[in-house]
Structure formats: C-alpha cells, structure tokens
C-alpha cells in the first residue's frame, strides 16, 4: 500500500469519530516522512503499521466523539437541495457544450475525409481543383483534432468540477472535512506537454494548409474571389 492510500484509508476510517483528524493525519504523515528518509519504501512502512481500520478504532476508543449533530446535518442537506437545481442547470449547460464540441469534431473529421478523398456522398461540396481540396481537407482534419482535444479537455473539466462539487457538498454534511478538490483537471506534466504539443501542431497545420489551399485556388481561378469564378453560391 502506498502512503497516499494508507492516509486516505485512515482518514476515511476516522471520519466523524474524532475531532482532530488533521492532527492525527499530520502525525502519520511525519511518520512516513521520517521512515522514507531512513530509506524504507512506502510499502515497507505501511506493512509495519497496523491496518488503517484497526488504528482508527484505537483512536476512536480513546476520546472519540459522536458524529455531527443531526440538526446540523438536516440543515446542510436542505441547503444543498435548494442549491441543486442551479448546479444541475450549470452542469447540464456545460455538458451541452461538451457534446457540441464533440459533434463539431466529428463533422470536421467527416468533411476533411471527404475533401481529401474526393468523396461527396451528399453533393454538398462545390467543385474545386484537387490540390485545393486536399489542402482544405488537411485544414479540416487539423480542426477536427483541435475540436476533439477541446471535447476531451472540457469533458475532463466537467468531471473534475462535478467531483469537486461533491466533495464540497459532503464536507458540508459530514463532520470531518476532507481537503477540497481542485477545479481544473489534474493532468500529469507529461500529458500536459503532449496536449500542448498536439494543439500547437494542429494549429500550425490548420493555419498553413488553409492559407496554402486558399492561395492555390486563387491562383487556379486567377482571382482571389475564386468562389465567384466557380459560381459556388450561385
């Protein structure tokens, strides 16, 4: 078991049974810190400790206090119920945004594939030289990637927000507070770097191929307003 797992299980087992949870966890945090500094692994340290649940019962036997007063709890639950419609509306609108981003990612993906392969199943794509269509297709695929990443990130954000709200809500109801959760998704440094690289590459590809596609078509049509020349919107 790792240090984090051990401390979280201990915290959970002590919840509502003691009034100085943070002090107790700090003491065991210190214990880990010292043992780790002496060269023990986290597994070794936890193996030498009693199980969190047994330790918790030892603390609770000694001057534990009963869980929060019922009236307090009822009040907190009532407040949370009043708040919940607002929270639900907020979460639902965020979810709509995530869904919208996901649909646009799919749409751009389909458009990109059609442009690049020359397929046009619903005859919606106007005629254009293949070089231009290839470049615009590439731009569309890059845009699809951006929208996909946007969907992914906003989905993670929504999930994290929801979890953080739940933690906050349960801290209102239960006696011993657990630390609040951060609002933004907790990605590792490596993931964040990869995400940033992917976004930058996609932006660069999209910008380049859109401008190049536009230029190619302007040259082929002999006019910057090539859509007039080819009667696209006539």
């Amino acid at each position, binding site marked *: 078991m790792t240090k984090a797992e051990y401390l979280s299980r201990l915290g959970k087992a002590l919840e509502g049974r003691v009034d*100085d949870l943070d*002090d*107790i966890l*700090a*003491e*065991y945090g*210190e*214990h880990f810190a*010292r*043992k780790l500094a002496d060269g023990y692994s986290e597994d070794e*340290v936890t193996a*030498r*400790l*009693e199980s969190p649940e047994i*330790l918790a019962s*030892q*603390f609770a*036997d*000694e*001057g534990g206090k009963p869980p929060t007063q019922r009236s307090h709890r009822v009040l907190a639950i009532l407040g949370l119920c009043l708040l919940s419609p607002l929270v639900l509306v907020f979460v639902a609108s965020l979810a709509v945004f995530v869904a919208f981003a996901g649909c646009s990612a799919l749409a751009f993906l389909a458009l990109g594939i059609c442009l690049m392969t020359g397929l046009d199943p619903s005859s919606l794509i106007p005629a254009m030289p293949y070089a231009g269509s290839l470049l615009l297709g590439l731009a569309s695929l890059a845009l699809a990637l951006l929208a996909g990443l946007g969907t992914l990130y906003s989905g993670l954000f929504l999930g994290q927000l929801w979890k953080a709200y739940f933690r906050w809500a349960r801290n209102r109801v239960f006696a011993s507070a657990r630390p609040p959760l951060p609002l933004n998704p907790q990605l590792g440094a490596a993931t964040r770097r990869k995400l940033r690289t992917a976004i930058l590459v996609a932006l660069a590809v999209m910008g380049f191929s859109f401008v190049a596609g536009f230029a190619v078509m302007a040259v082929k049509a002999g006019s910057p307003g090539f859509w007039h020349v080819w009667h696209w919107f006539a």
Partner: protein
Amino acid sequence: MNVQYKKGVLELCVLALLDEGDRYGYDVSDYLSKQVDISDGTVYPILRKLKKDGLLSTYLSEESGGPPRKYYSITEAGRAEFLRAREEWLSFASTIEGILRGEKQA
C-alpha cells in the same frame, strides 16, 4: 502479546520516556517500537489519549530546514501519575516475578 495489556504498559513507558525530557511523536514511536514488540504507529493513539487526559501537553518547535514538529511534554499531573503508576507496576512486577520463580512469601 495481548493488545489491551500491552497498551496499559505502553502508557507507562511513554510517560517514563517523556519524564526524561520532551520528544516529538515519531521519536517516541520509533524508540518504543524498537524496544517493545509492537506495530509501528501504535504509540500515536496512546500519545493522543494521554494528552486528552491532561498528562501530556504539546507544542510546536521549528527545526532547521523543515516543517515545525509537534513535541510532547509531560505535565505536572502526568509526572504525578507516572510516579504513582511506576510504584504500582514495580511492586506488582516483583510480586509476579517472585511467584514465577517459585519463591514462597511468608
């Protein structure tokens, strides 16, 4: 060894240790778990109980280049309880020892 039994004795050991001078939690725990056969971490509930009973007090002390540590210190009530419990234990232990060695009391 039986846990409840050991716990009573450990309280006495903690008091004895802190009667010699202040120590921080890990120090007490480490010392005792090296001397007595107990799991690591058993000492912290005992320290907390003794503090709740008013036999110990705590204070934070800054260490060079680290977060402040919680030191435990024996109170007057703790010292009185320690002296009483020590006498009780020593006389109890010597009686038991006598019985175990087969020495007949008059």
